[in-house]
């Protein structure tokens, strides 16, 4: 057992060394640091952050019994403040049954279908955003983790997606977010594109949204064929982004322009 852990740790170290050329951890920068003072202020105070309206909904949903099982999240998990601490910081996480990584929204829906025995919540629905915001809040201030060696295939796939040119404009994520962050795309400062604040209250959207919604924005901008919400490609991209952001502080639910 101890040897297995050691081996896993070695794999993780090798993995991180192999990717040292991508975005070195000492260059990591949360887009919070590039936001206008007024936008930061909106994130800094919970009573100013509109995302907290969804957190309140999520907190209520956590206690609400649902499905044929008649169970609430709290019936299995108890107080989210303890049980969900760090959960969002290590998702997407590897799911043994599916033999694939599952993001936070996917994890919530697995609980819904298997434990509560009810229908999964649609992506970007108020309920799913509310629950993911509430769960993600419990990781606020914690460092992003990406250690599970079983995630490596998804990380590689996500990395390939990040690097490859696509769409009519023939751009890769890498061109803006690894190579040109800090520059201006029209009037906007290009961020490094980290997943450390999701779900985010985006001023442009005037609502809360998931990382996958944001990824789809970029793909649309590149005039690329979009991946459906919840698709394995987007989960792989999320898994890579979490590896790329490892060690960064979770800000969820963050405010972004």
């Amino acid at each position, binding site marked *: 057992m101890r040897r297995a852990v050691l081996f896993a740790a070695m794999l993780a170290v090798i993995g991180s060394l192999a990717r040292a050329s991508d975005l070195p951890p000492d260059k990591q920068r949360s887009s919070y640091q590039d*936001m*206008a*003072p*007024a*936008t930061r*202020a*909106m994130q800094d105070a*919970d*009573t100013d952050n509109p995302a907290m309206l969804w957190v*309140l909904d999520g907190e*209520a949903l956590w206690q609400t019994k649902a499905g044929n099982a008649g169970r609430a999240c709290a019936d299995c998990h108890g107080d989210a403040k303890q049980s969900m601490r760090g959960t969002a910081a290590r998702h997407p996480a590897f799911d043994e049954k599916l033999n694939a990584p599952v993001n936070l929204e996917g994890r919530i829906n697995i609980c819904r279908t298997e434990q509560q025995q009810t229908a999964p919540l*649609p992506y*970007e*629905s108020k309920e799913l955003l509310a629950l993911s915001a509430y769960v993600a809040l419990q990781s606020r201030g914690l460092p992003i983790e990406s250690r599970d060696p079983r995630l490596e295939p998804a990380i590689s796939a996500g990395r390939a997606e990040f690097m490859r040119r696509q769409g009519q404009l023939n751009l890769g994520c890498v061109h803006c977010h690894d190579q040109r962050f800090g520059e201006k*795309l*029209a*009037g*906007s400062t290009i961020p490094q594109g980290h997943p450390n604040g999701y779900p985010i209250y985006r*001023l*442009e*959207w*005037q*609502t809360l949204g998931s990382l996958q*919604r944001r990824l*789809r*924005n*970029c*793909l*649309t*901008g590149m005039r690329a064929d*979009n991946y459906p*919400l919840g698709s394995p490609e987007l989960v792989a991209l999320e898994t890579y982004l979490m590896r790329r952001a490892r060690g960064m502080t979770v800000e969820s639910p963050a405010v972004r*322009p």
Partner: protein
Amino acid sequence: MTLTCKHDEIGAPKASRRDALRLIGAAAVGSTFATLRIQPLSASPAEMRTALERITDGKPVTAGRVKLEIPPLVENGNTVPITVTVESAMTAADHVRAIHVVTEKNPQPNVISCRLGPRAGRAMVSTRCRLSDTQNVIALAEMSDGSFWSDSVSVIITLGACLEDLI
């Protein structure tokens, strides 16, 4: 500090999810009123003047005593923080009666009109507004003596470069 929450039923018919997403897409073209490019509609500076005259009833407005705080370069016109403060003793005899905010190019010039009085202690209001374009924003204060004072700020709106697809 208290943090309260409550449920209330909205009597409004809910827009279908598809409609909602269409809106999102439309909004993401650059600003809240982006679809106005398709159906052109925006207030002109003349309409703003009319809106101001309606508020002041034609009384003169003097620049001063009012401070309108808006970041000069706004990251997104859909949610723009604004704060208006007015120099006033806020006593029964001398106070601010109302604070108004109007814009030059939004489809409708009015943003907010607040009524306050000596019980406010200080003449200060903050909110978040939508600005359809780079433009002037004017804050207007009506004093208890019937005089009007104002401040004006020119705001540059950054437009999102990446558009959002519809689902």
